[in-house]
Structure formats: structure tokens, C-alpha cells
């Protein structure tokens, strides 16, 4: 098998620099541009949230990174070309595409046996330890599991793989809050370290905001904002302004304005902090508010 022989040539040491490097990434589906010359970089040891409205190109971008689709432009993932070196790439990259993509006929044991058989970086003992914290039974079939249990199994498998990049596309969609919290908590406590990188898309921004180190907003196939969370607090600010200062605030060209309890809340990009403190109480904006402001008019 020519494709698997490439496995033996995986570079052992990490190529220095970015885990993902995309330049002019473009993908057309017929006449629609799913990705429109998107350029971005993802550095090692980060947890990056890729956030965008429906149809903005999030999933297409992930599919390009995972070598699941063809594209124009340049893209290198861990120094490999996802189009041509997919099997080698998948030794270092894991993904959970969305909930419940495990085959329904497989049992817990079969899934573990199979992954242990084909994945050189899978640690069976680790996987068993993760599973022992769940109610999953070795002979249980996926079709007998709830959505939350399927994710537990998938996560146990993925976390037992010593990969350098983990891609999560809406991994907790349709799960209840207990499973969602547990999902991200396990990732942080048992998986993530400075040698790993996680790229995650989700609509439940509030829930992952506190674990992200970096943020990328994608809109109409373009990356419109890429920042780390520290810089985000420096650059963006939310100010609660009394009615008498509203005009002064508007003069500073806010990104967004909304009303709460008779006060106006303005969102500013790159306005010096001293100037804003003059107007009222300054806060760090939530990712959700920033998102809504950035994406204004998307569906209009």
C-alpha cells in the first residue's frame, strides 16, 4: 500500500512554528465561495476557537485542514500537505467531526481493538482508564448508547491518541449541559498540554470562552478576526454609558450599541482605555457580544 508506506517517513520532530499555516485558502461549491482567500496561522500549544455564523466556511476550513476536501491556495498542517499526505497526517491529527459519528454496529471493545490495531500512537491503557469513569460496558454497541455516551466513548479514544492537533467540529451539539461541561473539563484536565493544539468550532461560545487561548472569527469565507484572548481584552472594550454621554460615545465610532436597563452599552475596537473610562464603566466584552457585533448583517 503506497499510501501507508508514507507513514514510516513522518518527521519525528515537530517542525518549528505554526501548526497550521493557510494562505489564500479558497474553496468553491458551484457558484458559492465557501472559503474566500482565507489566511490564518495556528500556533502550537493553543486552544483556538473558530467561530462563525452558519455557512461562513468553518466546516469547509476544517475539512481542508483534515484533507477531506480539495481546495485552492496554500495550506500546510504540521508541515504536511493534507491533500497528498493524508494518512501520514492523520497519525498526528485527531478529529471529532460532530456528535454520534461512531458506527452504530461497533462495540466498545471492537472500537478499542480496531484503533489499537491501526493507530501507532494509541494508548489502550489510557483509553481504558478514561472509560472506567463512565458507565460504558465493553460489549455495549454504539446503537445502544445515548448521544452523550457515544461522545464519551469517542472522547476516550481520541484522548488516548497522542496527537499534536485535535480538531473538534461542534463536538457537543445536542448534548445536555452535564455532558458538555464534562467534555471540555476532560479535555483540559486529561488531554491538553503545551505540545498539543486544539482547534474547535461551536455555537455555544459562552461555554468554551474561558478555555480558549485564541479566537478566530470567520465570515463569508474570510477570517475577519484572529487574536489571542489577552490581546482581545486590550483591543476591545465594552462601556456602559449614561444617557448624557451617549453622543460623545457615538463620536468614537463604536462597533455596536445596545440598550440595557436604560443605559447604552457600546463596544469599541482599539479606542484608548483612558478615553473610554471617561465615558463610563469599562468591561471586557464577552466573546458572544463581540461575535454578534462583528457578524451584524450576516443574515440580512
Amino acid at each position, binding site marked *: *500500500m*503506497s*499510501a*501507508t*508506506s508514507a*507513514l*514510516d517517513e513522518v518527521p519525528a520532530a515537530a517542525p518549528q512554528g505554526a501548526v497550521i499555516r493557510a494562505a489564500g485558502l479558497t474553496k468553491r461549491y458551484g457558484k458559492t465561495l465557501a472559503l474566500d482567500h482565507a489566511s490564518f496561522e495556528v500556533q502550537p500549544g493553543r486552544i483556538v476557537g473558530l467561530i462563525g455564523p452558519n455557512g461562513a466556511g468553518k466546516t469547509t476550513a476544517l*475539512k481542508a485542514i*483534515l484533507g*477531506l*476536501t*480539495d481546495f485552492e491556495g496554500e495550506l500546510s498542517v504540521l508541515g504536511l500537505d493534507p491533500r497528498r499526505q*493524508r*494518512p*501520514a497526517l*492523520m*497519525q498526528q491529527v*485527531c*478529529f*471529532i*467531526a*460532530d456528535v*454520534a*459519528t*461512531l*458506527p*452504530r*454496529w*461497533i462495540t466498545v471493545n*471492537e472500537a478499542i481493538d*480496531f*484503533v489499537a*490495531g*491501526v*493507530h*501507532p500512537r494509541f494508548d489502550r491503557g489510557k483509553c481504558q482508564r478514561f472509560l472506567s469513569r463512565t458507565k460504558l460496558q465493553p460489549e455495549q454497541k454504539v446503537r445502544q448508547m445515548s448521544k452523550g455516551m457515544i461522545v464519551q466513548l*469517542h472522547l476516550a479514544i*481520541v484522548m488516548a491518541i497522542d496527537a499534536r492537533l485535535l480538531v473538534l467540529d461542534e463536538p457537543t451539539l445536542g448534548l445536555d449541559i452535564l455532558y458538555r461541561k464534562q467534555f471540555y473539563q476532560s479535555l483540559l484536565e486529561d488531554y491538553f498540554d503545551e505540545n498539543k493544539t486544539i482547534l474547535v468550532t461551536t455555537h455555544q461560545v459562552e461555554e468554551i470562552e474561558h478555555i480558549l487561548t485564541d479566537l478566530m472569527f470567520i465570515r463569508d469565507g474570510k477570517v475577519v478576526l484572529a487574536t489571542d484572548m489577552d490581546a482581545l481584552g486590550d483591543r476591545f472594550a465594552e462601556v456602559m454609558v449614561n444617557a448624557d454621554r451617549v453622543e460623545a460615545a457615538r463620536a468614537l465610532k463604536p462597533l455596536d450599541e445596545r440598550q440595557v436597563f436604560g443605559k447604552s452599552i457600546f463596544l469599541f475596537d482599539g479606542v484608548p482605555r483612558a478615553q473610554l473610562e471617561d465615558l463610563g464603566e469599562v468591561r471586557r466584552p464577552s466573546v458572544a457580544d463581540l461575535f454578534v457585533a462583528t457578524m451584524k448583517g450576516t443574515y440580512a
Partner: protein
Amino acid sequence: MSANSLTTFGWLVKREYWESRGGFFWAQFWAAAAILILIVLGIVVGEVFRVRAGLDWSLNSTIDHFSPSDTANMGGVPGFGVALFAGIAGVVLTFVVFFYLLGALYDDRRDRSVLFWKSLPLSDIGTVLSKVCAAILVAPLIAIVVVLAAFVAAQIILSLWLLAHGINPFGLLWAHSEPYSIWFHMLVMIGVNAIWALPTVGWLLFWSAAARSKPFLWAIIVPVIAGVLNFFIALIGLPHIRYEFYWGDIAGRLLLSIVPGSWISPDARNFTPHFGNPGHVGVIDFPAMGHALMLPQMWIGAAVGVVLIAAAIWFRRWRDET
């Protein structure tokens, strides 16, 4: 091929078996079990009627009156048993493999579990070839093992029956009966069947990988519509493909080559030197297989099958809809 990729391929084939053991094994098991149950019921009913009628008939005396030719003919009973079990297994195998191939690259796209398989370091070449291997080697091998087990079970049942009547079953059923080389012939036949089956394997896998939905419909409807078009072209007097050739060597080969032994030609007796002799394995002897392996249809079909399988691999790699 490194040892590593061989192990991976082994796991891929094992996965196919896990997913399809219902068809590959249990369907064969229950088909054979049904025949065995019928044999037992037949014996029981026969005995009940015999006792009820108070017939003073014994199997023993019947056999005592056998002429040497009768005894020789009894040797055909096990042969008939093999043919019965193998025939039923062949029918089951055909249906199972047909639908297995149609679903092999489609079912996991439909339920999106393809994304799980694609999250592992597996090549699409290996994945598709493991499905080819499961269809033309694993499934028939399992079928032969089940047929062998069922045949032995049937022989044991009949032997017990004979023993109950005080007859030594060894002379009648086990000794001068069928050439046991038939099992070896069946094993070798898997190879001939496999090459012959390639166009159908490729055609079904191709639609399984390429169709956005309903691969069954595409696989059937394309050759049928082409055949109907050919008919109308012929009707208005334009150059067309001869009907027998189209349905036999094109459409038939794309859809039905997975029928075990469908390469056996009607005039097989012409090149099986011992055809019809008692104790001969019949139309699947080595001269017949050798003849089949020299047919141009065998190798042209195989080449078409290989091209279709390559196309299926391409679609498996690049089909992008999830």
C-alpha cells in the same frame, strides 16, 4: 508492503467481518441449519409413518437386497448432499455479497461514520481493497466452512439413523462415496470465482462510493436503460450491440458475476474429461477451471473490474458531501 501496512490491512478486513458477520456467517449458518432441521424432520416423519402403518419393512433388509450398482449409486447421496448445501450457500452468498458491496462505501457516508474512519491513519486504497477482499475471499471462505460443517453434520445424522437400524454407515455413506477432493476444488474455485467476479465487485463498489443516494437504483438502472436504448437503436436499424452480447457479456457481467461458478459455460462437459462419472467433481474440475481462466471474457472483465475499483477508491478519497 511493510509489515505495518499488512497488520493494518488485517484489521481492516476484520472490521468488515465484524460489521457484516450477520450476512457472512449467520445467514449461512441459518440456511444450513434449516436444511439440517428438514433432514431430521424427514427422518422422524418417515419413522412415525413406518411404525404407525405397522409395516414389516426394515432398512436392513432393503439394503441386503441392493445390487452392486445400487450400492454404487448410494455413493451419490453424499455428493447430492454437498451439492445441496453448496447450492444453497451459493445463493445466500450471492445476495449477501451483492448488498454488502452496494453498502460498503455508502452506508458509512449515509450515517456519517465515514468521518470516524477518516479520522484514523488509514489509506483509502487499503479501505476499499479490504472490502474487495471481504467480498471475494472472506465471505466465500466462511460459506465453504459452513457447508463443510453442515455436510458433516448431515452425514452424522444419517449415520445415526442407519445405526439405529443396525446398519454400518461406513460402507454406505463414508467409504466409497464422494471424492473428498471436492473440498479442495471448492477452495481453488474461490480464486476463479474471485477473478470472474471483479467486474461486478467494481461496478457495485463504484456506485457505492459515487452515488449521493440510492446506489442500488443506479447500479441496476444504468445497465437496464443502456440495454433499452440499445434495443431502440437496433429497432431503427442503426449499428448496435448484439442483444445476447449486451445482456450476457456486459450487463450480466456487471451485475451477476458474483454468482459462484457463473463462469461455468453450458458446454462444460466438453472439457471435463470425466464428466458424469460417479465420484467425479463435475463441472468444477481443474480442466474446467483452466478452460475458464483462458477465456478472454475472464480477463477483459477483470480489467474492467480493476478500473472500476480504482474509480471507487478515487471517489472514496474525494467524495465531499458531509
